[in-house]
Each structure stands twice: as structure tokens, then as C-alpha cells.
């Protein structure tokens, strides 16, 4: 397999992988089929409607792929898809959501080599790449287990003083617009998506701008994991260009920003006020660490619903819980 270069112009002299397929024998060289990196909206892989692209490169500046430079319209299309998917996904049995998250981990496991390859192209060592992919798989297993458990931990039956049954349960916030960590290709993305969908939300996620390859391949994993189309939508593009739209879209219920830029944080919080979005800033989380996973990440994007119902009160005996 040759290293991917600019599509259509194979550079035979470059062979970062050193896997012995360079054309040094008498055997006629088989031309590698290069992958087109597209975005993921509503369970489909369109190119950006804008027709724009940018170069994803490795640390040496070598071209890895032409990647979609997503537009505001792409984002809005993705929100429409996410909103449409929200009702069905949030209404799924929690157990079923757990199975689908487990299925995502299974698919990820099967594609391990591809992710390691992509991570290495994006400057990881083999050891780093393997660790990141393994953790990404395990993180989905972790959150798969939480799908039907966090509600039990964070619910309450409230002993009100009147004759009523009263209980409080978490429910998903709705459509979440998330900007994934920019310094990793896979683990940052996975760590932000998993708790969002484990909690029954749908989302639009902006991938790492400089390391976008794994995000698109991860979309292919999602697409083969029984996850309904639209529950997760993945865009590639420029953070500074898209963030304002993520934060002020009126049909988005929450914004998540995994970054430390103060200006960006302020702008997101300000624009989110337009429709009282919930804002979660994860600027100190080390995504490769154990602290980057907990049911509190799920709860960050949940609402608490409290329901009351009277208890019949016959013969003067007051019933209650």
C-alpha cells in the first residue's frame, strides 16, 4: 500500500509505511485506490454542499487528503437530521441504546488496523496509535454499560409532604452541537460523542481540523453499527468559521466546546444565550486519561424531569412514598 498523496498523482518515492509495496521489482505496480473523505449527515456521506475543501497534512506538511471544508449550510442540514433523529433515539429502550453503543465498539475493534494506520499517518507512533484506538473501543464499552444505569443513579423518588407520588428522572437535553478536541484525531471525538448519545441525545460534531481522518472513518463505523442515521453527524472544517453557527442555531439545545481558547469560550457562551442553550466547556480534560470518562459527562447533557401524581386518599389514611 502506498502512502496516500494528492489523489491521482502517485508519488512512488514516498513510502512512509515501508510495507514493501513500492515498485522495485518487475511486477507491474497496482495503483492504490484512495479514499475520499466526506462528511456524515443523516446517515449519509455527502460532500460539503459548498464544494470547498482543505488539505489535511501530516506534521511534515505532506498531503494526506482533500477534506471537506464544511459550510454553515452543511451544519444546518446536520441539525435538521439530528432533530429528526432525536425523537426516535431518545425513545429507544435504554437497553437497546446500550447494545448499539456496544455494537459501535465491535465495529471499531474490527477496523482497528485502519485507525492505527490513519493515526500513524497523522504523526502518531505505532504504540501511541494502538493505545488511542484501544482506549476508544474501551470507552464505548464503558458508556455502553452506562446507557441503562445512569438513570438509576441520578433519579429520585421524592418524599413529598402531600399525598402524591413524585419522582425525578434524567432526560436527554436534545440536539447537541459539539466541537471535539482539536489535538487528537480519534479519542477526543469518541469521548465527546459517547456520553452524548448514551444519554439519548443526538448531535452534530465538528472533528479536529488538523487531524480529521479518523473522524470520517469513525463515521463509517457508526454507519455500520445500527445507529440510526442522524443521531451522530460529523463535519470537518474550520473551527473559527463554524463555531458561531454551532452556538446560535435556534434548534440546538446545548453546545459543547473542548478547547481552551478564552475568546472562543466567551463567544460560544454569549451566542448560546440566544435560546438559553446549555454550554459545557471541557478545557482541562485529558482525553487519554481515566478522568475523561464518567456518568457525570452523561449528566452534563441531561435535564431533570419531575412528575407528580395524586395518591387516592380513602378513609382518612394518607398514603405516600
Amino acid at each position, binding site marked *: 500500500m502506498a502512502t496516500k498523496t494528492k489523489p491521482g498523482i502517485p508519488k512512488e518515492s514516498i513510502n512512509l509505511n515501508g510495507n514493501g509495496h513500492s515498485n522495485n521489482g518487475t511486477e507491474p505496480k497496482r495503483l492504490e485506490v484512495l479514499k475520499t473523505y466526506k462528511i456524515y449527515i443523516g446517515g449519509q456521506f455527502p460532500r460539503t454542499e459548498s464544494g470547498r475543501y482543505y488539505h489535511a497534512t501530516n506534521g511534515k506538511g505532506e498531503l494526506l487528503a482533500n477534506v471537506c471544508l464544511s459550510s454553515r449550510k452543511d451544519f444546518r442540514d446536520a441539525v435538521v437530521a439530528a432533530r429528526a433523529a432525536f425523537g426516535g433515539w431518545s425513545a429507544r429502550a435504554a437497553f437497546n441504546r446500550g447494545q448499539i453503543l456496544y455494537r459501535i465498539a465491535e465495529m471499531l475493534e474490527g477496523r482497528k488496523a485502519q485507525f492505527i494506520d490513519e493515526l500513524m499517518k497523522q504523526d502518531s507512533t505505532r504504540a501511541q496509535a494502538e493505545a488511542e484506538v484501544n482506549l476508544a473501543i474501551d470507552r464505548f464499552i464503558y458508556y455502553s454499560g452506562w446507557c441503562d444505569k445512569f438513570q438509576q*443513579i441520578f433519579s429520585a423518588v*421524592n418524599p413529598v*409532604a402531600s399525598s402524591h407520588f413524585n419522582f425525578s428522572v434524567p432526560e436527554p437535553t436534545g440536539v447537541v452541537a459539539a466541537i471535539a478536541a482539536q489535538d487528537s484525531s480519534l479519542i477526543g471525538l469518541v469521548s465527546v460523542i459517547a456520553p452524548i448519545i448514551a444519554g439519548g441525545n443526538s448531535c452534530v460534531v465538528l472533528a479536529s481540523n488538523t487531524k480529521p481522518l479518523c473522524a470520517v472513518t469513525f463515521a463509517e463505523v457508526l454507519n455500520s453499527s445500527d445507529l440510526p442515521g442522524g443521531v451522530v453527524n460529523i463535519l470537518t472544517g474550520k473551527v473559527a468559521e463554524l463555531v458561531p453557527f454551532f452556538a446560535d442555531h435556534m434548534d440546538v439545545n446545548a453546545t459543547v466546546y473542548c478547547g481552551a481558547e478564552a475568546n472562543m469560550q466567551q463567544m460560544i*457562551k454569549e451566542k448560546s444565550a440566544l435560546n438559553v442553550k446549555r454550554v459545557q466547556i471541557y478545557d482541562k480534560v485529558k482525553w487519554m486519561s481515566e478522568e475523561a470518562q464518567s456518568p457525570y459527562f452523561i449528566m452534563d447533557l441531561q435535564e431533570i*424531569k419531575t412528575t407528580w*401524581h395524586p395518591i387516592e386518599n380513602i378513609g382518612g389514611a394518607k398514603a405516600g412514598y
Partner: protein
Amino acid sequence: MAVKKSNTIKLKFDSARNLAPAPESKSAAKINERYDLFINGKFEKPSGKKYFATINPANEEKLADVAEANNADVNKAVTAARTAYEKVWKKTAPKERAKYIYRIARMIQERAREFAVIETLDGGKPIRESRDFDVPTAANHFFYYAGWADKLEYAFPNRNAQPLGVAGQIIPWNFPLLMAAWKIAPALATGNTVVLKPAETTPLTALKLAEIIREADLPPGVVNIITGAGETGAAIVNHPDINKIAFTGSTNVGKIIQRAIAGTNKKATLELGGKAANIIFDDAPLDQAVEGVINGIFFNQGHVCCAGSRLYVQESVYKTVVQKLKDRMETLIVGDPMDKNTDIGAINSKEQLETINKYLKIGQQEGAEMYQSACSVPRKGFYCRPTIFTNVAQSNRIAQEEIFGPVLTIQSFRTDDEVIEKANNTPFGLSAGVWTDKGSKIFNLTTKLRAGVIWANTYNKFDPVSPFGGYKESGYGREGGLHGLQAYINLV
């Protein structure tokens, strides 16, 4: 004019037996002529030397002059709160914190009647409501949260709850004492100190609470209560040494606050407006449902963020329900809030009455049919007769915007899916009501309505153990119950 035939029995109590006036005595309440700012355990004169009047909306008579806090006063209060936090409160043993809060609860109970009378005089709500609901619920709220102070390690599994620091709290005029309790009690229990600003039209019970806090020997500066209008509130929101803003009020102001603190690390909980759907299915016990609708919209003159202001009635019982509602409305007594027979008291302020009247006009201009009960209202003071609108379209402003008065819109529906769609079709999501005899239908509805509090076959019930707060533009964060603790802590 032809007489309209009605199948329901008219419940005209006032014609059958006119109730004699039953006024509550004012003697229980001592109101000073002038109130200063409660800062660092003392009542201090405002540095701007300005005072404003608070009036009784039932007769427009002045009750007292109240200090207006300016930036310097806010700064003083925040400094006092910061010092108390660092030097005293943070180091106070949780079980001792608890005992202070228990004391406050007990002292409110001891002076309950005084609080009820002042609440009614200052805010216009019926004495029956302030006596039986506002004041006891406020005391209970302190009592409930007091017990959490030394049990926080059980509340958040695998995490340690740390206080945030100084909480700036801004509360509305509809439940003045109760909102103060909702804000102060959990903040103190979790180890924070407080700067609280009551609404400018209803400052008196919060200032009475300040007296209690002093009597309870709470360390100076742990709770500071300062009065003023919007500018004072803005000074609290923008003060750099505040760690947390807790606000209850309109969605517009909530958005301004969210923007104002965007560049800071201040945490916020916002409890904002609502436009709740109250849904009656054809199998509901209609008389009970009608009582629930009356309570849902006319409780506290409709000055309730979770008021059931949009009624949806299934088509087959629509006419019956509307007729029953009109009949029941005729029995409501509108008038002197101090009278124990009064159902609907005074509108809280002239401005609010003007807002309500504006919407009554808008509703009629939009083509909706207005019906008001025939009762008389006092000449002086601010009053609004209970009002319903029929022939309302989903897009009408009266069905979309929060009116915050005794005004109900009524629409019909046919199917479950239709009414879920209509009920959720609003930027708000604070509360909702469902009336049906069928358990499975209740849970179908309660799981699909996007709102923080759902009352099924009941309405407008509150309890200290029960979390309250909204979805969507009704705000975020919860007050009350275990979940209400989260608003005042960092998890580490």
C-alpha cells in the same frame, strides 16, 4: 337577549349568600417606616442615600421606604460575603452549618403569621395563599436543606462536593419569601455565602428574613440582603468576585445574564418564563380537571412562571369544559387580598397590570374571543378579572408569550400526537399538566412533554424535596430536592 342554556349547575355563591368581609388582622405585622441594606450582619444606610417606596398594590398605599443599593453597596455586600466565606463559613463544620439553617426554619415558623401578612400587604397575594402556602413552604425549604449540610458526601456518588464561594441571587416578586428560601437554603447548606436581591416591588419579607438571620446569630456576611431595581441586579451579576448567579425571572433578563457572564467563570442557574400546556382528555374526571385548571391559571393571580396558561381540551368535551370553567370562574372572589375569602388578589404592580391589559387587547385584535367573569373589583389598587380566551390560534401571541396574569387561552385537539405537538410547540419548557383517567396515557404524555415539571391529574404542587426547573428557554438548573444541591457545588 336569549338566555343561554347550561347543563351544569351554576355555583353562584355570592348571590346565594354574600360573604361578610373576613379580613386578617394587620396587627401581626410590624413594618418599619424605612429599611436599610443588610450587609455584614448589620442594617446599613445606602451609600447613595437613596430610598424608594414599596406600596400595597391592593390599595396603592405606601408601606415603607426601602434603600436603593448602588455599585458601592453591592461591592460592600460582596466583600462581606467573600470575607465571611473565606474566614468563617468555609471553615464552619457542616453539622454546625446545618444547625444555623434549622434555626432560620424554626424562626420563620414562629413568626409565620407576621410573614404572611407582610407578604400579602407588599405583594397583593391572597392571605390564604401566603398563610397556607408561601410561608410554610419557605420554612420547610430551610428545614429540608439544613439536613443536607452534613450529608453531602452521600449526594454525589464517587465525587466530593465543594462550595463555589459567593452566590449572587436575584429573585422575582411573585413568591418573594419563598424564592428567597429556594435560593438561600441550598446555598448555605452547601457552604456558600450569599448576596441576595429581592424584587423592588416586594422587598419587605426578604428584609424581615434578614432580621431573622441576625437573630439566628448567623455569622455576619454569610447572608447579605440588598434592595434595589434592575441596576442593582446588574451590579451583582457583573461583580467580578461573585462565583455563581442564581436568577429567577423573565426569559429576556435570563438571556441578558447568560450573555453578561459569558466571559467569566461564573456558574449560573436560571429559572425563567413558561407557557405551560394543561391538557384535558375526554376520559378525565372533568370537575376535578376544571378545579385543576382554575388553580393552574388563577393561583397567585397567574403570577406563576409555571402557570397552566394554555389549556388544551379534547374536542368531544370541549364545550362542556368551557362551560364548566365559565361557571366556576363566576364563583371566584376577586378583591382585598387580606380577606380570607379572597381567591384572586391584587396584581403585583401597575406595570404588570398594564402588561396584562396590553395582552387582553392583543388577544382580541388577533381575533380570539375574550370572556371575563362578571365579578366586581375594588376601585383602588390593581386588579384583573379572571379571563379566558377561546377561538385561539397556536400562532397567536397570547398563546405564545408569557402574560404572567390571570389569563388563559383555550384550544381544542383530537389526538394524542396532535396535542403533544401543540404543547411542545413553544420555546418554553417549564411545566405541563395532563388530565386523564388512563395510566398508560399519562405516562405516554409525561415522557413526551418537554418540560421540567409535569403534573398529572393535579397542578401547581410544590415541595422542598421536589426538584423544580425548566427545559429549553425556561432556563437551566434545578431548585429543590437532591438535584437542587448541584446548583451550588463543584464536583471534584
